[in-house]
């Protein structure tokens, strides 16, 4: 069996009277690159902070490679975290940050990794990082996280603030690193189109709950779009386990469904969907179902 990099059961976190994350259960197998998606306020950052041990859960638990990140120092050595907007001390140079990383991480710190990566892509090591561009700062933050040689790398909206070129360069650096070290990645992002080529696992959060999770190829194989003659209200479709989204005109029904068997292809035209279609359908489907307690 494949090793589980991140495992959560019944994980929940409350801020005051508001649940930021509730009853979150998921398993992320080692070696995957997982997309953590959902609208603002869905609980993405909370989940990441719980996984790193920066927040204490109110219910349930999270384990990283079988260990509790809040109580086990060995677990922390396995985790790399790049927080939102890649916060770095702006007056420090990359070289100084690398030295600082060495002091803070007694074990396993490989300064060479950070230095080589940054040199290779032409990022000045001796300039205060506050004076670098957003894209360059993101690269410094990634290089620092990689120098820790983490087995699980968590990134919170790493490319949200970057222009398209910087975004592409960041993803290049990240994919190169995953190819080299085999790091497991959990990456939160709004930019679905960017994730399609990168992620092979999905965690979809909506209103503090896990709405959908699993390997992308399996999810895409079981979800399809059906187009056919108008379906009578309330009628079931053989082979369909769940209708995620439906729209109807007088004569035609368009359904995005999860299948659990063969669908009658003489009645329905079956279309494959993209990861983006799938995510949007699930977010749209649950938008009306649960009132959103958390404003962005």
């Amino acid at each position, binding site marked *: 069996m494949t090793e589980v990099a991140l495992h959560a059961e019944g994980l929940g976190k409350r801020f005051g009277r508001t649940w930021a994350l509730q009853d979150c259960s998921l398993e992320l197998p080692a*070696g*995957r*690159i997982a997309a953590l998606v959902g609208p603002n306020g869905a609980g993405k950052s909370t989940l990441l902070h719980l996984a790193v041990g920066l927040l204490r859960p109110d219910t349930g638990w999270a384990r990283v490679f079988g260990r509790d990140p809040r109580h086990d120092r060995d677990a922390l050595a396995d985790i790399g975290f790049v927080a939102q907007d890649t916060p770095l001390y702006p007056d420090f140079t990359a070289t100084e940050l690398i030295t600082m990383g060495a002091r803070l991480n007694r074990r396993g710190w490989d300064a060479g990794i950070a230095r080589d990566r940054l040199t290779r892509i032409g990022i000045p090591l001796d300039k205060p990082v506050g004076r670098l561009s957003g894209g360059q700062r993101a690269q410094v933050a990634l290089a620092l996280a990689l120098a820790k040689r983490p087995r699980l790398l968590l990134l919170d909206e790493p490319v949200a603030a970057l222009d398209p070129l910087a975004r*592409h360069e960041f*993803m*290049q*650096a*990240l*994919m*190169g690193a*995953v*190819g*080299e070290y085999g790091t497991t990645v959990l990456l939160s992002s709004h930019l679905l189109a960017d994730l399609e*080529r*990168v*992620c*092979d696992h999905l965690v979809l959060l909506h209103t503090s709950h896990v709405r959908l999770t699993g390997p992308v190829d399996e999810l895409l194989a079981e979800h399809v779009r059906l187009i056919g003659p108008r379906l009578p209200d309330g009628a079931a479709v053989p082979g369909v386990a769940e209708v995620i989204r439906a729209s109807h005109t007088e004569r035609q029904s368009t359904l995005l469904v999860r299948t659990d068997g063969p669908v009658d292809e003489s009645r329905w035209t079956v279309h*494959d969907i993209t990861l983006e279609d799938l995510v949007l359908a699930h977010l749209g489907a649950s938008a009306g179902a649960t009132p959103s307690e958390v404003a962005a």
Partner: protein
Amino acid sequence: MIEFVLDGRSRVATYMQLVLQVKQALRVGLAQPGDRLPKVRDVAQALAINPNTVLKAYRELELEGLAEGRPGVGTFLVRTLAGPSLAHHAELREELVAWLGRARAAGLTREDIAALVDTTLRATPDRPPTGGT
């Protein structure tokens, strides 16, 4: 060595695009048995795609007997798709270019030509029943 490119608008799965590019290169003789495929990490980085996708493409090529992984060294092409027909490619291409010129002169657009080639290919049996053309 092959340099992969991806078609962002294509509906073809990313790993299959890589597989098809290798096959295309083998067919026209741009890649040959003995050539090493680029390192997984380098392809992942250059195209900003999941390394697992590159691995999947290479595994598919291995399954089809076109490539072979040598642990610690890389993945190598072991078979070609060019076959003896490769020798005729240049001549056929020349004739095709001339034919395309005639088609354009007759007022056919790119799409018309593609459609004509496509329907003709489908309507023609793979092996002609007699020795004719």
